């Protein structure tokens, strides 16, 4: 009855006895064996280490690394150039004034009667033959500048010759810039009149495309809704090749962007520099606009 049943795990004491006896067992492998094993292992380790070093050396020889500094230098130069150039490309600029014989008098007339309602302007424009591209891009700031600075002679001077037209455009552009800065300063100083004149300016614009872009620029959704009816080409471009959508994007007018996209504006219409609205939104840190553009298929 002292026997361990077969199912029972027999005796941890056997293992314990074995270990006790093993501990007392003085037999050991020969010292020569140990020396031979360790010497052999050390030799193999040295061979492996030298083989690894040889592989690394041959890899370096096969693939010289002289090109690395050249690549890094080129990349650094390209990055620097991009930092210098990109702000100039992406910053919204006042487009040059385009001299237009047909529009300038109208603008001058409007300057004397700034309260002309938009429908009247629309009717006047639609009755007019299509204007050349540069005159179609008459910026609202220029018209506003002329109206504020009361320089009606600038536009007639444009009519004379192409050369004079260019000179006139430059003069008008300078005047517009001055007026724009002046208006901005007044706005910053809290002058409500200046602010009012800026918001009223689009309505005074006789060019529907320019008015449309201005409405996009300032996020005037009501004006956009009105002008989209009369604006034949929603993707008409200014002299820099910017559409109303691009201008709204550059100015961070998310609502205007959404409205323009809803009206069917081309989300991929790039400007003259090849910058797309999505790129402009990304560069300008307008994630909501970028997301809206992507939803409408912008790349």
């Amino acid at each position, binding site marked *: 009855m002292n026997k361990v049943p077969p199912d029972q795990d*027999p005796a941890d004491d056997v293992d314990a006895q074995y270990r006790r006896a093993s501990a007392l067992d003085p037999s050991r*492998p020969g010292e020569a*064996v140990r020396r031979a*094993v*360790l010497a052999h292992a050390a030799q193999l380790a040295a061979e492996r280490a030298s083989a690894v070093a040889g592989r690394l050396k041959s890899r370096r020889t096969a693939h010289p690394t002289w090109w690395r500094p050249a690549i890094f230098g080129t990349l650094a130069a390209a990055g620097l150039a991009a930092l210098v150039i990109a702000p100039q490309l992406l910053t919204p600029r006042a487009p040059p004034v385009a001299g237009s014989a047909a529009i300038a008098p109208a603008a001058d007339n409007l300057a004397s009667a700034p309260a002309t309602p938009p429908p009247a302007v629309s009717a006047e424009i639609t009755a007019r033959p299509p204007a050349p591209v540069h005159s179609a891009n008459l910026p609202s700031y220029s018209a506003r500048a002329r109206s504020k600075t009361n320089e009606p002679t600038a536009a007639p001077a444009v009519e004379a010759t192409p050369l004079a037209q260019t000179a006139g455009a430059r003069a008008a552009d300078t005047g517009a810039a001055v007026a724009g800065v002046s208006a901005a300063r007044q706005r910053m100083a809290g002058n409500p009149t200046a602010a009012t004149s800026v918001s009223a300016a689009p309505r005074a614009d006789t060019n529907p495309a320019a008015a449309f872009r201005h409405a996009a620029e300032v996020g005037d959704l009501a004006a956009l809704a009105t002008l989209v009816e009369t604006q034949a080409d929603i993707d008409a471009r200014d002299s820099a090749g910017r559409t109303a959508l691009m201008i709204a994007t550059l100015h961070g007018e998310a609502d205007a962007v959404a409205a323009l996209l809803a009206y069917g504006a081309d989300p991929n219409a790039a400007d003259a520099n090849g910058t797309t609205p999505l790129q402009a939104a990304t560069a300008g840190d307008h994630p909501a606009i970028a997301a809206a553009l992507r939803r409408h298929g912008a790349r």
Partner: protein
Amino acid sequence: MTDAGESDEALLGRYARGNAAAFEVLYRRHEMRIWRYLERNVGNRATADELMQEVWFAVARDAVRYEPTARFTTWLFTIARNRMIDSNRISRRQVSLEAIGYEAESVLAQLTTEPSVGPLAAAVVRDQASALARALCQLPLEQRDAFLLQIEGDLSIEEVATITRSSFETTKSRLRYARLKLRELLSEYA
């Protein structure tokens, strides 16, 4: 990490990358376990020494091919067992009770001549070691192999079954009968 705390697998990996010191740590950690497994299976010190050298040469050579899918000890004892079978020493040298007893006695004779060991202690050592050697020799080959694998390699039943290419149940049965037999034999010498 210190060498003492570094796993066997990590040490072998370091050796495979050319670190000889890692191999020495590994060797000293498992030296006696492999030695006892070999020596108690073949029953001859010279043969065990020879096999010991072959096993560790194989470990050094194949370290770069080792993939840690199994424990290092499983791999090590598999090599040891295969070396033992390849050399056909087990089948040629049927371990005889006399041979083991003779070796044990000769070792113990050396031990008892040492001044640090008193006569009574020497007698105890002689009795226990001799009893163990005799008991192991009386085990069937498969049972002894399975038992030594498990106790020296600290392996699970599954690992012993894998190394001996036997089923789990067969291995479990061999281990149980080996322990029963050892218990019975050792009690006689107690």
